[in-house]
């Protein structure tokens, strides 16, 4: 059924709907993970699916990430389209070999005989006080591998649409779902119309003075930051897909605004904002009105305390302050932790 009439859904319901729709339309799709069938998923993203599609298509696994991710690789390589849930993205650490060294290489090593239409979806990110082993984005574990695609949901619509596109993609895709967003309730266009193609950025807000490129939970932070900068017109771009990222959309925008700020929930070292900054600086050197500014988290474990975690993540106020300083001074301001570190 195709409908362009939006439906109000929470982000986790949008994920559930995407899984439902793909399970329904393609008998090769299966869903696997810890506590996803009978219990409906730790974040309720798979609730009720086993009742509709049965235990051979919605499969509870033991707590054996390497085992079930590896099995998903083998199933994908022999014709199924498995969607694996990693309850927290950190849990993939014990299974990383299967994704980065096996799944991503089978097409190459078989000269295209073997394809791996595998999706790994994982809750990710900070903001809920889960502490440093359950709060990271970890996209940097996947981005430089080659042979893997990586995308990040930022709202109910792309939580639905990116997941459906990922399931239909012939290559392995990691879909990161910022778990802080699961409870957000928004309009979603379902059906074919609601599918969000991989590799395409989304224009969140049009503006003239500065382009803010962001993704995931930082999209709404950027949206909240924009009105705090009086007199500055912000263009906001949600990358949606980190690999391959939409270079053209970003370069087109910055070539008009002349300024680029990248807001990333991720480390200062090794974050995807480095790639965006380097590419835009190389492409538009000479026509930029200011240096590129990267606003990230510090290179430290995610702290638990509410007050510390709030500081750890870029806030709307911080994004507005840094961006304003960039525009006023024409050079990049130091990150907040540089001042703190001096005092240590």
């Amino acid at each position, binding site marked *: 059924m195709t409908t362009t009439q939006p439906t109000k859904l929470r982000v986790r319901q949008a994920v559930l709907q995407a899984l439902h729709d793909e399970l329904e339309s393609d008998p090769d799709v*299966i869903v696997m993970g810890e506590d996803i069938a009978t219990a409906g998923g730790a974040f309720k993203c798979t609730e009720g699916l086993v009742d509709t599609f049965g235990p*051979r*298509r919605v*499969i509870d*696994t*033991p707590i*054996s*990430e*390497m*085992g*079930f*991710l*590896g*099995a*998903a*690789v*083998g*199933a*994908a*390589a*022999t*014709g*199924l389209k*498995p969607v694996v849930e990693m309850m927290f993205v950190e849990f993939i650490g*014990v299974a990383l*070999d*299967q994704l980065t*060294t*096996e799944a991503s*290489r*089978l*097409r*190459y*090593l*078989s*000269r*295209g*005989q*073997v*394809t791996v239409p595998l999706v790994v979806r994982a809750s990710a990110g900070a903001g809920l006080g889960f502490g440093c082993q359950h709060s990271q984005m970890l996209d940097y574990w996947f981005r430089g591998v*080659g*042979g893997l*695609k990586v995308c990040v949901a930022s709202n109910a619509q792309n939580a639905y649409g990116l997941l459906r596109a990922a399931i239909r*993609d*012939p*290559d392995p895709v990691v879909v990161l779902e910022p778990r802080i967003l699961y409870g957000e309730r928004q309009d979603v266009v379902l059906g074919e119309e609601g599918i969000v193609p991989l590799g395409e950025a989304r224009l969140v807000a049009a503006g003239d003075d500065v382009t803010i490129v962001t993704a995931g939970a930082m999209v709404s932070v950027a949206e909240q930051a924009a009105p705090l900068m009086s007199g500055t017109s912000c263009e906001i771009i949600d990358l949606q897909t980190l690999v391959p990222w939409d270079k053209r959309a970003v370069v087109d925008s910055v070539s008009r605004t002349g300024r680029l700020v990248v807001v990333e929930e991720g480390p200062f070292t090794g974050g995807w904002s480095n790639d965006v900054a380097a590419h835009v600086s190389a492409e538009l050197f000479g026509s930029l009105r200011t240096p590129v500014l990267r606003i990230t988290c510090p290179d430290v474990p995610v702290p638990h305390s509410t007050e510390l975690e709030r500081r750890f993540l870029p806030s709307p106020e911080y994004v507005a302050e840094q961006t304003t300083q960039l525009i006023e001074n024409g050079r990049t301001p130091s990150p907040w932790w540089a001042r703190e570190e001096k005092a240590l």
Partner: protein
Amino acid sequence: MNETVNRSSAETSLDRRAALQGSRLEWLARMVEIRRVEENVQTLYNDGHIRGSTHLSNGQEAVSVGIAVAARPTDMVTCTYRGHGTALALGVSPEGVLGEICGRSIGCIGGVGGSMHLGDTTVGLFPTFAIVGAGVPVAAGAALTAWVRGTDDASIAIFGDGSTNIGAFHETLNMAGIFKLPVVFVCENNLYGEYTRINLSTPVENIADRAASYGMPGVAVDGQDVDEVIAAVQAALDRARAGDGPTLLEMKTYRYSGHSRADPGTYRPDGELDAWKQRDPIDILRQRLLESGDATDQEIADLDVRVEERVAQAVASVLASPAPDVAEMLRHVTATTG
């Protein structure tokens, strides 16, 4: 190009696999072929045609050929980087194997993989896995596909004794036990995990005993006897196809060489290698064929010559084969770079 070359180049991997169903003499021919190909690996390395590492399986030929005889070409197989024998047994041509090892375009995956990555899905061989234990869950995944679709396909994971100390092995056997997946786990226990003897790395003498934890039968098999290997693999595959679940087979075998090209294997106790060579899998089968009257001395002598020529011809083709085109490096990374 002479007639022999034309005939062999038209022969597909599937033809080579089907040939094993013809006669027991062909099993012997394939085992001899594996031995000769690996002898050439050493020569080609000495002559500067091979880079990187190689891991010979000489001494283990009966396991490779036994699996190939028992399995259907549609049964997916995962195997380790000690995979020359498995690839040849399943049907990959000597040119395909030697060409890949030498990084030439004639190689079974065009020279981008090397010795550790031989594959051909037309005969069920996933590109071989160069990470210890990595292929074990992938084979279970192929079985999962059969389990979901309700077909009678089965899959086979081939791995070494060293793999049985890796988490992937235990996680996979546990999961296969729960779901009764149609998969056969074949451990080639050649007594050494890389440079370390099994008694120093593993607290049980029989790998087969490990099956007990995962609710499946574990069977120790004489891996030097191809008839024993075939019977055991066949029984396990039948059980898998019948929906009765997985089996762990432990093939007691031995590698005559060290772990890799760099390893002379000097850590092995005196006399161990010689003792195993007394039970050489090729000698055992040859003797049995002669005693049973299935083959004459002349037929076996002819077979040796035929294989020798076939492998020599493969070496010549490999040396005449160009390096892969640079564009091959950029292809097959994702669907859009196909």
